[in-house]
């Protein structure tokens, strides 16, 4: 499973990479962590804090935002033969459902949201103590111990959630084996076996973040910034912390566009932008490349498949698949994806036009599935939540093409604050409507279909 890593370098080089080369950078140089220190910390966490659960199926809700804590929690849970749950959002209703399904759920995270206070908790304080202990008594790198461990955890599961076309959140189970194999394809595509540095604004809990900030760097020569910077000044200082070239900024079209608006001077060694979660136009890609003075690559994938293709948008609109990704035609524009690491082929939610075995263009997306700030939801699901609120007569969410945010058209006697308060319990904040428009009734065609274009012309109340 790790042959791509083991075969690409001598045992001495591997030892240097794992034991002596900084992997996760923090502000203070002596605080940075090597891959081996992360590995040892995960072993300790697994043997001490998690082992009390060894008699039952261990489920860990992993909420850490910081990359080092997250990775240690992820690896430790796998070592304990447990499953990691990455929640789609922290809305009350979501957490309630997870607790019902898994009453014994442990939470790895600090400031816990309401509703999780009674669950067993592991905080970053404990992991910091373990880091401290590992640094104080450094154990020499042991390649066999490493390979045996990864072989032993290859079937360990990571659960992610996505909105299926039916509208209900769908659980996607990924194994470490799949994530590592998939990472090897991306490592090859983006040449991560050459030293480089990654700063990412995307969360660990979503597939793109999980890949780019954990699996890709852990099994390559890429090093990583420990935090998830959001503000422009933080992104710059994270990039400036390290002069390793090339530096990658991993983000989303929305975040990159907002960063552009600050009109700042970006560090010269930032020469790669990686964007995913929504397609970029060529014009915007050109603007981003010229402002950041960096090449922009888009990554294409889904929670079901992980990333499978990329393109440099200013050069071509054609996506090139990673090596060994193949398609199986279902209908005219519908395809399923197969890679040698996917147990079953996965149906793509986008329509594609296949140009040859390794190249395709994207067609239109299933119109029920929308993305806001990188988060995917089904409009059907959002509308179902809306109608579950008592006092709503009828209503519908529509995505505003100009802002990417959702607009809500609603018939109700509730005030905007009432509506928002109820929706907050049910939805991720990204999907809260901006703004709300009151209508006497939804405009409908003779056959009862909602006339969306008519609604979008209406001014907010």
């Amino acid at each position, binding site marked *: 499973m790790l042959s791509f890593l083991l075969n690409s370098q001598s045992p001495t080089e591997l030892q240097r990479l794992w034991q002596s080369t900084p992997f996760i950078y923090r502000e203070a140089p002596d605080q940075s962590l090597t891959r081996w220190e992360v590995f040892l910390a995960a072993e300790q966490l697994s043997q001490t804090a998690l082992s009390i659960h060894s008699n039952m199926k261990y489920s860990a809700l992993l909420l850490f935002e910081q990359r080092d804590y997250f990775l240690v929690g992820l690896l430790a849970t796998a070592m304990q033969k447990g499953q990691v749950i990455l929640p789609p959002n*922290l809305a009350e209703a979501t957490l309630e459902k997870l607790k019902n399904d898994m009453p014994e759920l442990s939470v790895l995270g600090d400031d816990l949201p309401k509703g999780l206070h009674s669950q067993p908790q592991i905080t970053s304080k404990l992991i910091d103590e373990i880091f401290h202990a590992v640094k104080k008594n450094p154990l020499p790198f042991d390649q066999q111990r490493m390979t045996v461990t990864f072989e032993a955890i290859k079937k360990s599961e990571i659960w992610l959630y996505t909105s299926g076309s039916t509208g209900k959140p769908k659980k996607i189970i990924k194994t470490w084996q799949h994530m590592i194999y998939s990472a090897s394809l991306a490592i090859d595509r983006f040449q991560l076996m050459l030293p480089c540095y990654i700063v990412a604004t995307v969360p660990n809990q979503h597939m793109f973040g999980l890949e780019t900030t954990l699996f890709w760097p852990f099994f390559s020569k890429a090093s990583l910034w420990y935090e998830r910077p959001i503000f422009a000044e933080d992104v710059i200082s994270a990039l400036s912390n390290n002069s390793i070239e090339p530096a990658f900024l991993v983000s989303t079209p929305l975040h990159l566009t907002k960063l552009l608006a600050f009109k700042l001077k970006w560090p010269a060694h930032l020469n790669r932008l990686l964007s995913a979660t929504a397609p970029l136009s060529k014009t915007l890609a050109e603007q981003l490349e010229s402002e950041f003075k960096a090449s922009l690559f888009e990554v294409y994938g889904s929670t079901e498949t992980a990333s499978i293709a990329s393109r440099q948008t200013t050069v071509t609109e054609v996506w090139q698949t990673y090596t060994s990704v193949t398609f199986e035609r279902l209908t005219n524009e519908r395809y399923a994806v197969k890679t040698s690491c996917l147990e079953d082929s996965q149906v793509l939610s986008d329509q594609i036009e296949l140009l040859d075995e390794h190249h395709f263009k994207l067609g239109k997306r299933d119109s029920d599935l929308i993305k806001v700030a990188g988060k995917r939801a089904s409009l059907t699901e959002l509308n179902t939540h809306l109608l579950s609120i008592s006092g709503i007569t009828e209503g519908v969410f529509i995505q505003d093409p100009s802002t990417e945010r959702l607009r809500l058209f609603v018939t109700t006697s509730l005030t905007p*604050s009432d509506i928002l308060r109820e929706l*907050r319990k049910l939805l991720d904040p990204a999907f809260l409507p901006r703004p709300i428009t009151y209508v006497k009734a939804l405009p409908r065609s003779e056959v009862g279909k909602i006339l969306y274009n008519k609604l979008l012309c209406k001014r907010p109340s």
Partner: protein
Amino acid sequence: MLTPEQLEMAQLIIEAVNLEDIQADEIDPEDALFTNGLGLDSIDALEISLELSKKYGVKIKSSDVNINEIFGSIASLTAFVQANKQN
């Protein structure tokens, strides 16, 4: 009751993140802005930080200060901006 500075901040936030259906003077200055309060997300925070840098010359940087406290409420954000504004 919002102070004039807090009212100005509430207005800036409403415009920055397009919360047109909320009236600035309806907001409780101590209410949480994120998750459980107004329900803003990280992209909203970025947009607010852009407006704050344009209007007040304040640079928001999470590593300098306790960002969660500053972005905790209208009251705490206003206090921070008043103490750090350049223009």
